[in-house]
């Protein structure tokens, strides 16, 4: 019976991820290709939105991944603190810049979408503001990783920051809700409600979301592999200096 923890062994992780990486990359390319082409060229223009609605195919998946990346970092940070698996800490480190980029994409596409819809690129709306704060959390997290030289201490400290940051990110989310009522519409997708976007837009959007998930997994795998290799190189250089 094999256990999930086997993948904490870098060698095993490298072997498995070398198989998974192309699979997820291809899946991401296919899903994104299908979803974007379908979404941009084959769907009708929405009433009272015009063609600008099509930015939804990038905006919504990016926003979802921006939050999910932080959740993933929280889980891997906890695993690192409890079970001390290096791959876990490195995966958290690898995910942070990707999450930050997703946050930035969501903010920028949101601004581009906001201009024709609300007549302004930016409003201090709860959803927008909490994303801006999430962006700041990512910046702080990445900066802390970069600032500390000892890799184990850096992993420990960023894990603690990630956990505390998660609590405050959640708190900020509700605090800004309380602070101002905004323009942003409610969630476009949910499992139990009938208030989803219209069916014509729904299916390509699902493709795009699946594509973003696969893209995220592929990028995290790629960056984690790079981190592991970089650490091996550092270890070899250190050994050479010792000899």
């Amino acid at each position, binding site marked *: 019976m094999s256990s999930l923890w086997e993948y904490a062994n870098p060698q095993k992780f490298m072997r498995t991820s070398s198989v998974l990486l192309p699979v997820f990359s291809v899946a991401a390319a296919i899903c994104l290709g299908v979803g974007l082409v379908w979404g941009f060229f084959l769907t009708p223009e929405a009433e009272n939105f015009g063609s600008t609605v099509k930015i939804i195919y990038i905006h919504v998946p990016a926003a979802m991944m921006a939050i999910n990346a932080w959740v993933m970092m929280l889980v891997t940070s906890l695993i690192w603190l409890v079970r001390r698996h290096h791959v876990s800490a490195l995966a958290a480190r690898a995910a942070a810049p990707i999450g930050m980029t997703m946050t930035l994409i969501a903010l920028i596409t949101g601004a581009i979408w906001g201009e024709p819809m609300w007549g302004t690129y930016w409003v201090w709306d709860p959803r927008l503001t909490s994303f801006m*704060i999430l962006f700041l959390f990512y910046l*702080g997290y990445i900066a*802390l990783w970069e*600032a500390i030289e000892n890799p184990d*201490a850096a992993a*420990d*400290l960023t894990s603690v*920051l990630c956990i505390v940051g998660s609590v405050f990110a959640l708190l*900020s989310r509700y605090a800004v809700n*309380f602070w101002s009522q905004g323009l942003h519409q409610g969630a476009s997708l949910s499992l139990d409600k009938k208030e989803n976007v219209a069916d014509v837009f729904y299916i390509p959007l699902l493709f795009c979301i699946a594509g973003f998930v696969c893209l995220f997994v592929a990028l995290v795998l790629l960056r984690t592999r790079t981190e592991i290799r970089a650490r091996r190189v550092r270890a070899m250089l250190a050994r050479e200096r010792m000899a």
Partner: protein
Amino acid sequence: MIALLQRDLRLAIRAGGGFGLGLAFFLIIVVLVPFGVGSDSGLLAAIAPGILWVGALLACLLSLDRIFALDHEDGSLDLLATAPIPLEGVVAMKAAAHWVTTGLPLTLAAPGLGLLLNLPAAGYGWLAASLALGTPALSMIGSFGAALTVGLKRGGLLLSLLVLPLYVPTLIFGAEAVARGIDGRDTGTPLLMLTAITLAAMALLPFAAAAAIRINLR
């Protein structure tokens, strides 16, 4: 622990700098705002609660890196870490000393500075109350940030990047309480939330900060 508190307080007062500097910085911010936005007293009255809270927050931020850095440099932090009292208690006392030397003076000075910003009369009590309830949270969150960056050479800038996003909820509820107090609306919710943040920060963050110090001293 009481001895530690007294020691930190004596150090902060005798070493100069830290104690008055935060207040002076707060004063500078409040003086600069009218130059920036114009001296229209109606406008100043409207933004006064927010500016006073942001000013208090920045003044608090200014002195954060002193919480552990000096003790780390001269080695006394190692002694404190191996002392018979738990490191969590040390952190809590450090945060308390930071609050007494910055948060408390800021709370006391804020109504006076409110005068400069033409804060409406109804706001003074709420400003003092919200700062009194909120600044302990600022000190506690700040000592967590200081604990994370204690071993770093250029910790100051990084510290502000780490701590400012954590300050957001406190700032929102604090400024909202004052703004509601001025309008004569119910201030119960923001003040209760502020108290909740402060109590939760005092209960939980010493453990996170102590963990960070242990990692940094390892």
